[in-house]
């Protein structure tokens, strides 16, 4: 197979900053990798770690979580709570062997359309280099196998 591997990336973004940033990238006609699927949420504080696990469970090769810069949260401190949660969850993922290259975190404001486009490109490139998440995919496959009695 000489086909280029196209990674599937899920981005969980907050509606006030990063989603508006993605919008700005679009209206500014910036071209970025089409590999990313955006899921829009009210706030980064709403992003449960379960979302990350669910994305991986459904076959995502990479996950991006992004929201407002500290101090800019529409709900004043949703992103501060999220930051702590990620800090802990990130360490947990790393300890259980889910590579930190596959789960990325960023702050992108509504004015940073360029940053959004660049980040999507660089993440897609990074994950393309890593290849599919074979270890996790093997686990997913196991659940699909017919039952043996």
């Amino acid at each position: 197979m000489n086909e280029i591997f196209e990674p599937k990336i899920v981005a969980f973004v907050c509606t006030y900053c990063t989603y508006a940033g993605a919008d700005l990238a679009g209206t500014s006609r910036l071209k970025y990798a089409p590999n990313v699927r955006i899921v829009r949420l009210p706030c980064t504080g709403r992003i449960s770690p379960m979302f990350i696990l669910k994305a991986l469970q459904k076959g995502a090769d990479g996950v991006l979580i992004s929201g407002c810069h500290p101090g800019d949260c529409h709900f004043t401190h949703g992103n501060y709570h999220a930051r702590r949660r990620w800090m802990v969850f990130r360490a947990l993922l790393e300890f259980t062997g889910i590579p930190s290259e596959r789960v990325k975190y960023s702050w992108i404001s509504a004015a940073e359309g360029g940053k959004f486009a660049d980040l999507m490109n660089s993440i897609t490139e990074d994950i393309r280099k890593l290849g599919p998440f074979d270890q996790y995919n093997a686990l997913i496959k196991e659940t699909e196998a017919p039952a043996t009695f």
Partner: protein
Amino acid sequence: MTIQETYKARVKKLLASGTVKMVIGYKPGTTADRRRPHFIRTPEEADQLVLDSACITNLSGYLLSEGLLSDEKAVAIFLKPDGIRSINILAAEAQLNSEQILILGFDSNDNQVTALEGEKVEEFTTLIESIKEQAPEALKNPLLEQIEGMTPKERFAFWQGEFSRCIKCYACRQACPMCYCRRCIVDCNQPQWVNTSSHTLGNFEWNIVRAFHLSGRCVGCGNCDRACPVNIPLRLINAKMAQEVLGAFDHFSGMSHTQEPVLASFKKDDSETFIL
């Protein structure tokens, strides 16, 4: 008088005087080296009480049995330092009123049981502070360091091997004093976050979620470890998370009954080196 006899006398006195309505302690178990929880309501029942180095279970979870504390009467309970920390956490999380709990503290070292001074959680603050000071050393574990030295692939393979044995009996959850949710996330089926079958994928998710929910709350009593029928080193993953919150936020679980839960609070200058 041995410590067991001293405490037996004290328990009888507490019950006879009506200071407490119940004492939660230990009695002989199914084999010589096992102890089971003993719920003592009358002075006579206290005769069965056992207190020795085999009393290792953290009993604090029983305090949350439905209806036990709702009449606002006091309950006495035998606790080691880790159990006392559990009481602090449960009080901080508004699961119980620490005023209602009378602590019969003990500690065991080298098969030697010693009594701990104090009755109320606040009286153990200096003890818990000294435990926090020793924590960076105490949390170290050779296997943990070995895992940290692995590549992500090897780590994944290690945990895959461990979790593939999991049979999803949820004994870890039942044994844990911190797992008091009426409805656990694995029991939620709309949406179903965690695969309920005991495939390795679902096991992975379940154990990651549990470790996450225990980060900054686990006191390392080892109830889950001992309850696990397939010997998954659950305490290891919890110790790692305890190290993490101690290093990142200087948070040591169960310091006081007013301590803010680590994941329900924040500082504006929390580290964010990993955020792009």
